[in-house]
């Protein structure tokens, strides 16, 4: 774990992964702030965790199964009511590929 050093390239990479179009000033601010936040996490290295299993949750829940039977869903119109753009009862988005 790095001790609070973070490069601009790393910040840009993370912003790309997170789908956040940060401007220059924002990226620089997050570079500094993330470095100081990550430095706080160094405390976790004080512990010997070799034999400790990770916990994703708190209860020993087994996989919850549901019977595979069709049920009514929300009406299409209700689902699309909040959509920024709709075409033929589908969400409309900008093109992914050039024509």
């Amino acid at each position, binding site marked *: 774990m790095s001790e609070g050093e973070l490069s601009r390239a790393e910040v840009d990479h993370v912003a790309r992964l*997170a789908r956040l179009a940060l401007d220059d000033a924002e990226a620089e601010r997050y570079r500094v*702030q993330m470095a100081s936040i990550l430095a706080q996490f160094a405390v976790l290295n004080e*512990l010997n965790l070799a034999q400790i299993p990770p916990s994703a*949750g708190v209860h020993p829940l087994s996989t919850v199964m549901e019977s595979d039977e069709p049920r009514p869903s929300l009406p299409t119109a209700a689902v699309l009511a909040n959509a920024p753009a709709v075409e033929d009862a589908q969400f409309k988005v900008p093109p992914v590929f050039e024509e």
Partner: protein
Amino acid sequence: MSGALADLPLHRAADLLRRREVSSVDLTRAALTRIDERDGEIHAYLQVTVDQALDAARAADDRLAAGDAPPLCGIPYALKDNISTIGIPTTCGSRILEGYVPPYDATVTGKLKAAGAVLLGKLNLDEFAMGSSTEFSAYGPTRNPRDTTRVPGGSSGGPGAATAAGMGQFTLGSDTGGSVRLPASFCGVVGMKPTYGRVSRYGLVAYGSSLDQIGPLTRSVRDAALVLTTIAGHDARDSTSLDWPVPDYNATLGAGISGARVGVPREYFASGLEPGVERAVRAAIDRLRDLGASVEEVDMPHTRYALAAYYVIAPAEASANLARYDGVKYGLSVRDDGDLLAMFSRTRAQGFGAEVKRRIMVGTYALSSGYYDAYYVKAQQVRTLVKGDFDRAFERFDVLAAPTCPTVAFKIGEKVDDPIGMYLTDVLTVTVNCAGVPAIVVPCGESDGLPVGLQLIGPAGGEARLLEVAHAYEESSL
């Protein structure tokens, strides 16, 4: 009269309703009048649904007149604005969800509707429940009714302030790292985080899914018991919902706490605790002893690692949960001449505020290739150790007693540009979420004229005992 009605605890208001001494319309108008008088300054509400509230109040009065109405019938309340309400906008305090109207109710919303409770509106919060002061709402901060130059705590600052100021007989908040308990402590009301899975998360907009839990903020412990009894229970629509029986939490109150074993975790009184807060909490623990409880100190050695673990795990889960806000299905959508990826990235850049972006960045980093083991897995291992501390403590104790926060409510603006200082506010509450156990905050006096909250923590499923101890303390301090 109207002012007095607005400030009544829920259980007293329910008694008056049942005796037909007041109507639900009276209670609802009293709360709406108080909102008119005070919320211009406090800004607990993002939205007040006046007409729907009065319609619901009239329907509740009909039910009450017919007899056989459930305990919360006719009681005015409000919801944190990350709890879905069909037909009523749900913003999560974010620009990215401005104008979003849920096509379904959260399970808790549906249960309260079925119980005849009267929804007054939706309450302010830190954007997507990420914050400890409610200053990170895109719609402006909420002020603490006890001192309007100070924050109400967060992220359920709207619920805390509304409950304290008589703007609803109770409210629901959500608690991922202390977001119900901290506002309860700062505003001087009761706030409860149930066992993880006790209350359905269906329709609660997700932040940290393994930590999130909905809980009540009320003006008495009995009120919290009444609300919890109504909203708790298994829900097939939440796969993490607990299939455990739900007792009538109100029925068991008043048995006394003679013989209760109370543990006092040393680590919660570490340096950084304000002397006035420590004094108030120690005095409250002495009171528990006077009431017949046995009190002993206990070591919870991994407490000091919980904050770092939490601030890896919660942002990691948030970065995944908030991936859904991409401008496709609802909310803000920034579509210039760019392609799909540009729409995602610009929508999110414009729609999210600074703290949400900060947590998405930290969470994405912690989950990214090369850092996953060093941060995320390590944090989950520490979570195992934190949970182990609680498991061991509850072999010896029925409840643990501690402060809720090292400080009283701080000034608006004091920590808004200091992310780490803000995160430290949660140092005594995140442990409970990491372990999934229930906790309740009950007012225990003041420090410098500002409220202090006693935090009582119980084992998983131990809400009934927790409420009994909190109730006994509350009764003795009246």
